């Protein structure tokens, strides 16, 4: 259960990439908070800035070309952006852990699973070799690897995709992190394996009280896994709300379009709603609202003036000139 204590607070984060093609504002003024024990979903399409947001939190944005232009990232009260690199390294992997979409990008193919798992607890928790080895086996058992004691000394290629993702989760959870950032953790996996991994994250979260940031493009996964959602588009935070509220009563035309365009297997649908046009080129955004060229509700002002972040309720915000009206309409339709 989420508590009221804030674990992470991101304030006005801006991460830009300086390219030959000009400055790409990958993340441009994002603010949000995660409470202890809470799962926050970040939804967005490719280029929305959802992954860069999280690389910024753990200060893993490659620089150059990337630059953390401004903002604060308060983790348990300390601003990560103001900390010296060694201090950040102490937090990363220990208090904040990550799981990526492709486990092979994070597992070293030349090292035994045992070595890779032991490294973390030796480094962060000062375990002896024997302690770390036993802990590695225990972690593999926790994430449901059969015959953990036998398999702990195998290499990553001897594991299937789903099993590798379990190893990743075991690594991430080795030091009992307070925050787990999972970037599309189940996207590359088959449907039945995806269900296993999501159930595992849910179970471990309940047992340890870890907060989770879940980055995904799958609204079904968001619906089943998260307490809060933020929707990103073109580097901007378009909408934030508690999950149930966001699905029941979206206050932004982009969110609304996205929700309507997903096939719902539980009901008969005619033609799907489709958002017209193409995702924006983030290096060359139009003035005004970046979604305006694709928005049905857009008026003249949307093409010329950047929209305000409108507070719809105490915990629901929307970036739109017509947020109140869209929200009211969703309420009537709902």
């Amino acid at each position, binding site marked *: 259960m989420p508590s009221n204590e804030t674990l992470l607070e991101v304030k006005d984060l801006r991460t830009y990439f300086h390219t030959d093609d000009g400055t790409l504002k990958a993340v441009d003024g994002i603010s949000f908070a995660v409470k202890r024990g809470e799962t926050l979903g970040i939804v967005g*399409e*490719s280029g929305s800035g959802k992954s860069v947001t999280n690389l910024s939190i753990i200060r893993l944005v490659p620089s150059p070309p990337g630059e953390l232009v401004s903002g604060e990232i308060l983790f348990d009260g300390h601003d990560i952006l103001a900390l010296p690199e060694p201090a950040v390294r102490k937090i990363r992997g220990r208090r904040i852990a990550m799981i990526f979409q492709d486990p092979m990008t994070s597992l070293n193919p030349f090292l035994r699973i045992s070595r890779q798992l032991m490294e973390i607890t030796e480094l962060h928790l000062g375990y002896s070799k024997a302690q770390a080895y036993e802990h590695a086996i225990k972690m593999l058992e926790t994430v449901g690897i*059969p015959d953990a004691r036998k398999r702990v000394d195998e290499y990553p290629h001897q594991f*299937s995709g*789903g*099993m590798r993702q379990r190893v990743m989760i075991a690594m991430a959870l080795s030091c009992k992190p307070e925050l787990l950032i999972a970037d599309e953790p189940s996207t590359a996996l*088959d*449907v*039945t*394996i*995806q*269900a*296993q991994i*999501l*159930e595992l994250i849910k179970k471990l979260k309940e047992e340890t009280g870890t907060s989770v940031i879940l980055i995904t*493009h*799958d*609204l*079904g*996964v*968001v*619906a*089943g896994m998260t307490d809060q959602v933020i929707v990103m588009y073109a580097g901007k935070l378009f909408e934030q709300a508690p*999950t*149930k509220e966001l*699905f029941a009563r979206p206050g932004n035309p982009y969110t609304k*379009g*996205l*929700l309507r*365009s*997903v*096939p*719902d*297997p*539980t009901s*008969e*649908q005619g*033609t*799907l*709603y*489709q*958002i*017209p046009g*193409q*995702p924006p080129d983030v290096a060359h955004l139009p003035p005004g609202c970046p979604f305006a060229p*694709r928005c049905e509700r857009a008026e003249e002002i949307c093409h010329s003036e950047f929209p305000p972040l409108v507070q719809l309720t105490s915990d629901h915000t929307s970036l739109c000139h017509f947020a109140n009206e869209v929200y009211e309409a969703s309420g009537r339709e709902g």
Partner: protein
Amino acid sequence: MNNQESQPATSDILISIRDLKVHFGRVKAVDGVSLEIRNGETLGLVGESGCGKSTLGRAILRLTEPTSGSVFFRDRDLASLSNRQLRQHRRHLQIIFQDPYASLNPRMTVGQIVREPLDTFNLAKGREADARVRELLETVGLSSRFIKRYPHEFSGGQRQRIGIARALAVDPAFIVADEPISALDVSIQAQILNLLEKLQREKKLTYLFISHDLRAIRHVSDRIAVMYLGKLVEVADSRTIYDEPLMPYTKALISAVPVPDPNIEATRQRIVLEGDVPSPINPPSGCRFHTRCPYVIEACKNVEPPLVEIKPRHFAACIRISPEHPHIEQVAPGEAPGLAQAELNV
């Protein structure tokens, strides 16, 4: 539901696949599939990676040579045609690929890409061909202004549209759509699904829609076939498969699909399967799903279950159910009402 609907007449069947096998050395990618695809329908083919669904799609078009079995297209067995005869038939059978980045020649302009099949089959020349290319681009929602541009200048969704225009150029009767939306963003997926549906209505196309995405498959398909390790395990109307799956694998697959509704997700009972999909190199004996099946009994390890019509127009491969006892939950522990039928088949 159309349970009363009579069996389709033979003329309604466009593609008839009989005991098709595709083996790559020891890997039995497709291992004895029989299936009929009706004129004008969308048949969804769903399964997890390595189940053989893409290989089946390619084998139908003979882009991959079948090891044995036949594929009848309007009464002609494609598997027995010579290469020259096959080339003429290819006109009627087209494919759209998953990766719109890899399936378009980067050195050809969009106009050349869409025009190539017109030249290959001598369907149009000169101005007529130009006009046809423009018309095709407009049909798939691309401006004909783009005709001189190269694939890299387009987004993923636009490239998929180019691939669709190329497939349509020869006026095909049948299109295999192999994971056509998997590489696309959510907002673009709906555009492509709608486009495929619109084209089907306008041009009376028949689709084999291959995907691992049950939500998309459920949306576009009239019927759905579920594949597991080279075999079909269930075939039924799209809605029936979703509302009333009979085979335990299908049940698990459907319960695993995340539904975009927090209220439904909060109360759902999910069947989480143990373990991974076994390797197709050495598939389990008997029922290939027995290693992961929550309902497994001893006989499942030895007897290969045939695809049986358990309910009208609803086929499933499981010895623990039968037309008299279609619901596995209601079958007594250890019982296998379908066993007699399975043994008849041997």
